[in-house]
C-alpha cells in the first residue's frame, strides 16, 4: 500500500478506500478511488441492478443564512429558489453575465432564511469567491462548510431497503429531490433523495469525523461481500453511470464557455422569475436560437469515442465530444457532443476522429438510460 501523495486533498474516507483496495488517482487535486478490485464494469452494473456506495465527500458545501438568503441566491442562480419549500432541493447553475456556467449545483432549502449549496469539488474555491464578490450589502451570512461534512451516496434499487435498516426516518416518504434531517446509525445526518447515477437512491451528509462509521455500517447493512450486496464504487463508475443518464459534468459538458441553452439546461433557466446574472443574455439566446447544441450519440461502427475528439460532417470539423465512453449497462459506445444546431436532431449521422481514424456515429435521444419507475424495492 503506497502512501497518499501529500500535495493531494483527502476525504475522511481516504484510509477506508486504501484498505478496501481502491485504486487511488489524482482527481482535480483530490486523492480519490477511481475503482475498487471488482472493477468499473461490475461496479456500474451492480449500481443499476442492486446498489452502489460512493464517497462524494470531495463535493463542496456552502451554507447561506439570513433574511436575504433566498433573494440573494436567486439573483446568482438560474433556477427559481422561491419555488423551493423547506426540505426540498433543486438542480441549478451559477451563471455568468453571458449566460455561461460558473458551476452547476444543488440548492437545499432548510428554512426561509437558510439554504445550503452543494457545488463541485474542483470549483468550490472559485464558487466561494464568486458568491462573496457578488454580495452587495444583502443580509446574508456565508460559510464554506465543505470540510465539516462527509457526503456518501447510496444509489440503486436496493438503496432504500439498506438505508432504512439504519434510520428511523421513513425513507419512502421522502420524495425525489427532497430531504430530511435525521439520524443514520445514530449519527445526525441530512438524508437527501438525490443522486448522480440515474437510479433511485440517497445522499447522506454528516459530520466528517463520522464518515468511516457510516461507510462501514452501510456496507454491513448492504451485505457487502455477497454476490448481490452493495459494492463500493469509484469515480470511473460514477462517470459512466451519469453519462448513461446524460447528466452534465462540469468541465466537460458545461463551463464558462457554454450557455445553459446550448447544454439543454433550459429547464433550470427560469427567465420569468426576475433578474439574475446572465438573464438578459440567456433571454436573447432563447429568442434567437442557439448556434450549437449538446447531443447524445451512439457510435455505429467499431470504436470508442473519447472526450475532446472532433466531430466531422462531410469532412468538416464541426464539433467536439465532451464525454465519450463505453456504456457498461447499455453495452454500447456512447457520448455527448456539441454540434451546430442544424445537425442537432435524432438520426443525424456524423463521424468522430478517434485518434486519426474516422468512426461513424448517430444522434440519439437522451437520456440513453432511464430506469423503470417503481423498480425500487421496499
Amino acid at each position, binding site marked *: 500500500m*503506497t502512501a497518499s501523495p501529500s500535495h493531494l486533498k483527502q476525504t475522511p474516507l481516504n484510509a477506508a478506500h486504501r484498505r478496501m483496495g481502491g*485504486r487511488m488517482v489524482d482527481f482535480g487535486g483530490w486523492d480519490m478511488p*477511481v*475503482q475498487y478490485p471488482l*472493477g*468499473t*464494469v*461490475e461496479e*456500474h452494473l451492480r449500481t443499476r441492478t442492486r446498489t452502489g456506495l460512493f464517497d462524494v465527500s470531495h463535493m463542496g458545501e456552502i451554507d447561506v443564512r439570513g433574511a436575504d438568503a433566498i433573494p440573494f441566491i436567486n439573483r446568482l442562480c438560474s433556477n427559481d429558489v422561491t419555488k423551493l419549500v423547506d426540505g426540498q432541493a433543486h438542480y441549478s447553475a451559477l451563471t455568468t453575465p453571458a449566460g455561461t456556467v460558473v458551476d452547476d449545483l444543488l440548492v437545499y432549502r432548510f428554512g426561509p432564511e437558510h439554504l445550503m449549496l452543494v457545488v463541485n469539488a474542483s470549483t468550490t474555491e472559485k464558487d466561494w469567491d464568486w458568491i462573496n464578490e457578488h454580495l452587495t450589502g444583502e443580509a446574508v451570512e456565508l460559510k464554506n462548510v465543505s470540510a465539516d461534512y462527509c457526503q456518501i451516496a447510496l444509489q440503486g434499487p436496493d438503496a432504500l431497503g439498506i438505508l432504512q435498516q439504519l434510520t428511523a426516518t421513513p425513507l419512502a416518504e421522502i420524495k425525489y429531490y427532497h430531504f430530511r434531517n435525521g439520524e443514520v446509525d445514530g449519527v445526525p445526518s441530512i438524508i437527501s433523495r438525490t443522486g448522480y447515477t440515474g437510479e433511485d437512491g440517497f445522499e447522506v451528509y454528516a459530520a466528517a469525523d463520522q464518515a468511516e462509521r457510516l461507510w462501514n455500517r452501510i456496507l454491513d447493512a448492504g451485505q457487502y461481500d455477497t454476490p448481490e450486496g452493495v459494492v463500493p464504487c469509484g469515480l*470511473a463508475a460514477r*462517470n*459512466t453511470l451519469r453519462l448513461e443518464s446524460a447528466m452534465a459534468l462540469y468541465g466537460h459538458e458545461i463551463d464558462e464557455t457554454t450557455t445553459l441553452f446550448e447544454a439543454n439546461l433550459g429547464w433550470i433557466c427560469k427567465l420569468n422569475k426576475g433578474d439574475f446574472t446572465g438573464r438578459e443574455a440567456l433571454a436573447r439566446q432563447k429568442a434567437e436560437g442557439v448556434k450549437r447544441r449538446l447531443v447524445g450519440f451512439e457510435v455505429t461502427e*467499431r*470504436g*470508442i469515442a*473519447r472526450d475532446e475528439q472532433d466531430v466531422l460532417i462531410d469532412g468538416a470539423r464541426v464539433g467536439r465530444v465532451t464525454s465519450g*465512453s*463505453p456504456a*457498461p449497462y447499455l453495452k454500447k459506445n456512447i457520448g455527448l457532443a456539441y454540434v451546430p444546431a442544424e445537425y442537432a436532431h435524432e438520426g443525424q449521422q456524423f463521424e468522430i476522429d478517434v*485518434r486519426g481514424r474516422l468512426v461513424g456515429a448517430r444522434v440519439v435521444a437522451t437520456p440513453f438510460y432511464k430506469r423503470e419507475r417503481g423498480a425500487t424495492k421496499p
Partner: protein
Amino acid sequence: MANVPENLHYSKDHEWIRVEGDTGTIGITDHAQNSLGDVVYVELPKVGESFAAHEAFGSVESVKAVSELFVPVSGEVLEVNESLQDEPEKVNADPYGGAWMIRLRVGAKGELDSLLSAAEYEDYLSTETE
C-alpha cells in the same frame, strides 16, 4: 503480485513475447491488464503489416482509458487474434494465453537481447510501483 511467467521476454511497455523458431507471439502482461482494468476493446493491425521495434501496432481500451500497444521487436504480422474483437475480456482473464494479440515473423533475433527476462521485469515492476 502480478504473474510473470519464466519463459517469456518482456518490454518496459508491458508487452511479452514468446519466440518459437522465427515466430514471436505477443501480448500484454498481467500487470498491464490489471492496471488497465476491464478491457472492453482491442484494436489490432492487419496480417502483412510490418513494424519497427517499439512501434505502436494497436491499442487496448478499458472503460476509462486507452493504451497503445508496442511491438517489443521488429517484424511482419503473420497472424492476428481475431477472437479478441468479440471477447476483449479475455485480456483480463488470460493475458499470457488466449489473449495473445499478434504473431510476428521476427526480423532480427538480436533485438530480443535488449528485452527483459522474467526476473528483470519483476525488478522493473517493483521499482515502477514504489
